[in-house]
């Protein structure tokens, strides 16, 4: 990483509009995400938090506007961009037929990270020791969420887009997860997340409130 004063933004968003089913979710959104940023998207249900994350991840086309990764339009550097990005959505991307270890092995293979004992360590780290070899459909919702989050313990990717990462986690899990978020931004990573949890005590937390601009459209 370069010196902290003149770091270029990782992710730049310019004049982003998003419409779904003829409803304006947000318009003319400008955003700069620097290394070390922790941004929480806020807003009532239906304000477009998830849609914004999906647009940023390129899963949903924006009606207009552009997203830049390290100054380049995402469309032109999409492989680079995707290899720098972890997106964990509502759907955890966990295969119910596979064990936590097998699920994790795939995500590790995508990053060239193949040390088996490290994967086991990651599972222990999210509190799943003893569950390595049970098919995931036997796990509880919170445990499945932990399998998905275990990726975050070894990933080298700097940008995390997390949609409600605390869903189904217990109190202790939420606290540990918050610490992980703080550790990642301290390492020079960047996080954009949606959450209904109050994350007030996290250092450096920024907030973006959606649904204000188009407030009239919401009940």
């Amino acid at each position, binding site marked *: 990483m370069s010196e902290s004063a003149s770091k270029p933004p990782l992710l730049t968003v310019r004049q982003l509009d998003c419409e779904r089913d003829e409803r304006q979710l947000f318009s003319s959104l400008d955003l700069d995400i620097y290394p070390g940023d922790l941004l929480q998207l806020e807003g009532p249900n239906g304000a477009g938090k998830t849609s914004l994350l999906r647009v940023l*991840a*390129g*899963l*949903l*086309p924006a009606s207009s506007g552009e997203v830049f990764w390290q100054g380049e339009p995402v469309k032109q550097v*999409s*492989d*680079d*961009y*995707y*290899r*720098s*990005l972890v*997106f964990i*959505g*509502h*759907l*955890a*991307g*966990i*295969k*119910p*037929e*596979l064990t936590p270890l*097998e699920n994790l*092995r*795939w*995500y590790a*293979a*995508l*990053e*060239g*990270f193949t*040390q088996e004992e*490290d994967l086991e*360590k*990651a599972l*222990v*780290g*999210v*509190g*799943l*020791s003893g569950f390595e070899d049970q*098919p995931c459909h036997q796990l509880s919702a919170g445990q499945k969420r*932990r399998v998905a*989050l275990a990726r*975050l*313990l*070894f990933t*080298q990717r700097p940008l995390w887009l997390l949609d409600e990462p605390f869903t189904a986690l217990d109190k*202790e*899990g939420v606290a*540990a*997860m918050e*610490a*992980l978020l703080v*550790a*990642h931004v301290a*390492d020079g990573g960047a996080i954009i997340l949606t959450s209904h949890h109050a994350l007030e005590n996290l250092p450096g937390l920024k907030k973006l409130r959606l649904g204000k601009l188009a407030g009239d459209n919401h009940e």
Partner: protein
Amino acid sequence: MNKTAATFCRLKAKKSNLPSQGSVFLAALAREGRLQVRRRGDLLNPLVFFALVVVLFPLGISPTEEILAPVAPGVLWVAALLAVLMSLDALFRPDLMDGSLEQQQLSGYSLAALAMAKLAVHWLLTSLPLILLSPFLGIMLYLPWEAQGVLLLSLLLGSLALSLVGGIGAALTAGLGKSGVLMTLLVLPFYIPVLIFGTGAMQTAISGGNALPHLALLGALAALALTLAPWAIAAGLRITLSGE
């Protein structure tokens, strides 16, 4: 590290090189293999369907050679075609439902290659057993010996084309819930040439002619599907994902 409580501690950063497209493809093959073997029921279904149609057919018509032998190529091919079509319907839907599909799209590796890994494993575990079973069912239908080799070869080439084209339909309809009918309507027109050349090859072989031209055409269809389908499947999956 505390063994019992979740610490969510980051593992020591080890600088790992980004894997090549090839090694990711191999990892995808291994994962798909494991995944599809765990869903044994889904693998057996098309095979049982294929066998049942061919076994029940003589019971419904007549078990005599004069009646069965002329229709054997058609029955075998239609049953195999429908079995393949049936097995493909749910190819991508579970991946879409549990979020694995969006993770594949976001992996930074070719979605076409990942989808092909899935399709390759699927072909190996459903179509190949079906092809290997077909000679035995052929015997039950009084299929002449000289046509057995052509049956195997035509199904081998034909099932490649059927799987690949069916994959496009499965990709496009994955987001539509139980979409069996739509998928069938989409894909069936493309299945008809495969069926015509497949049964044509067998009929030519039975009547003592040279089946090679038919088989060559089947091979050409399979090659065409192999070059175009991966991109069409990836495009179909992207469309499906952006509609979620």
